[in-house]
């Protein structure tokens, strides 16, 4: 820059100012983009709620309305009278809670064996556990169906509950990652004091790993609450349906009554969203622990 010293200091000041302005502008831009995308992401939810409060007539009005002319609560009443909704909720709860019990009991045991016990099987079994995550569901689907058929389990909850009592690769992995962060010295000193593995597992590991166990419990619950494929394969009596399958069966007969269908979807979704808000921390922890340290 060809100028006097005084001038150049002014330029430097200007450059500094402009840089600051640029930075502010970019912050503003980033904020605007985030808000825009958030808007786009939340619109489907709002659309679901708005439609669920419209009458059948208004839903098919031309031109379509955005806001309901008047809030039509009837859809929400009809959901409970036309679908045995509470029964489906009860059925889904039976499966989901049993699954949670199974996973918490067994996935923690296996994770303990894969992290804190020094034994010959560890180095063979752990890669195998991870490897099973890559087996497509379809490969085991038909033989498993045949096994349950031969046991007379088709049309019962057994095929949906039982597998949860043998640990699941994903949860074992998640818990193992967490167990690894507990200092081995703690386990060793307990061993020296004469504590058995059962005691260490029950009285040291379980209490210390409550957050990870909660995460597994929540994921298991949500997975079973929303599961579609399992109930589709194994449940054949309407009175035993879960919410997913019940709703699907309902779609078959009411496929043009969108107000009703979306009211049902909203009722299905809301408990999950409430659970999510109550337990947000565990979700985020659980997802990141498997995603990152993988």
């Amino acid at each position: 820059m060809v100028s006097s010293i005084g001038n150049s200091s002014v330029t430097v000041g200007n450059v500094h100012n402009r840089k600051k302005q640029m930075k502010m502008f970019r912050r503003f831009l980033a904020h605007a983009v985030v808000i825009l995308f958030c808007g786009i992401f939340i619109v489907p939810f709002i659309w679901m709620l708005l439609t669920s409060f419209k009458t059948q007539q208004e839903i098919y009005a031309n031109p379509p309305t955005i806001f309901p002319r008047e809030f039509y609560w009837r859809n929400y009443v009809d959901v409970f009278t036309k679908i045995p909704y509470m029964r489906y909720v009860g059925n889904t709860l039976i499966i989901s809670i049993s699954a949670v019990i199974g996973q918490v009991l067994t996935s923690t045991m296996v994770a303990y064996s894969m992290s804190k016990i020094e034994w010959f099987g560890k180095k063979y079994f752990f890669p195998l556990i991870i490897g099973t995550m890559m087996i497509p569901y379809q490969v085991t689907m038909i033989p498993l169906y045949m096994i349950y058929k031969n046991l007379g389990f088709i049309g019962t909850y057994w095929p949906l509950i039982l597998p949860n009592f043998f640990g699941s690769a994903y949860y074992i992995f998640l818990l193992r990652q967490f167990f690894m962060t507990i200092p081995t010295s703690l386990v060793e000193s307990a061993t020296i004091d004469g504590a058995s593995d059962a005691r260490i597992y029950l009285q040291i590991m379980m209490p210390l790993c409550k957050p990870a166990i909660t995460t597994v419990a929540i994921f298991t619950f949500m997975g079973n609450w929303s599961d579609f494929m399992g109930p589709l394969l194994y449940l054949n009596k309407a009175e035993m349906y879960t919410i997913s399958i019940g709703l699907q069966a309902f779609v078959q007969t009411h496929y043009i009554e969108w107000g009703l269908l979306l009211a049902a979807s909203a009722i299905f979704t809301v408990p999950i969203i409430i659970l999510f808000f109550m337990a947000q921390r565990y979700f985020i922890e659980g997802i990141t622990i498997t995603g990152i340290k993988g």
Partner: protein
Amino acid sequence: MKVKTKRNISGFIFALPWIIGFVCFSAYPIVTSMYYSFTEFNMFQAPNFVGIANYKQLFQEAKFWKSLYNTLYMTVLGTPLNLAFGLFMANLLNKKLKGMSVYRTIFYMPTIVPAVASTLLWIWILNPTQGLLNNALKSLGLPAPNWLGDPQMTKPALLLMGLWGTGGIMLIFLAALQDVPKSLYEAAEIDGANSVRRFFSITLPSISPVIFFQLIMSVISNFQYFTQAYLMTNANSTGGFNAASGGPENSLLFYALYLYQNAFAFFKMGKASAMAWILFIIVAIVTYALFKTQRKWVTYGE
């Protein structure tokens, strides 16, 4: 008893649930599935050995190739699209802005909606005349396609719907971004690297293991794309118990859906098992190939 033996015994006991589960729910079914794939089997009579007839038949069948094509379409387009969008959003949400935790929650929320509910909602959003999307497009003066009726548009519609569910991917990327040492960025800034440069020479290499992990998981799950397609085509056909239609001109007949139809609608268990094994082999090859490329672009720190 020796300490070592004792440790081996308790290790084994604690691992026992998984070992039993592995034998009953993985190993035995995998082997049986292989056997079924060489048989004609309708579930009611004993399997009848037919050699490689199922495989031969599949390879000559247009519907098989169509379902494979549809699935590859979703995998090849959907995986990079979801990963890129997830990473883009993670980058945006990694900035220190007011109310960020609220924004993050909003992005994550769609992923927890049960598939039945979200698919139903999207069928309605994609409705050609009354749907939200087409009304928005029309008001912007853009063409309003028949998303779920036009075979050219059905898969793009599912890709769009998939983007709404990228919150999980975003969250993992976000955590990975927060793990990148700040000092790297500071040093680069002093060296005068602009933000684009910083992204490509610091951010991407630092999070490449996470990108790799997500890539593998996403490819595996895309190959098994089922629930949304089942619900979408079943809601539209509104008939035929247990047999989703496959959509207009079979444009939504995905591999897993066709496999399911063969097994539980047509009761061709042998053919379905052959399909399962072909899928297994494809997934294994693709995963192996991706692992092979790892050395070229994935950098493990420390």
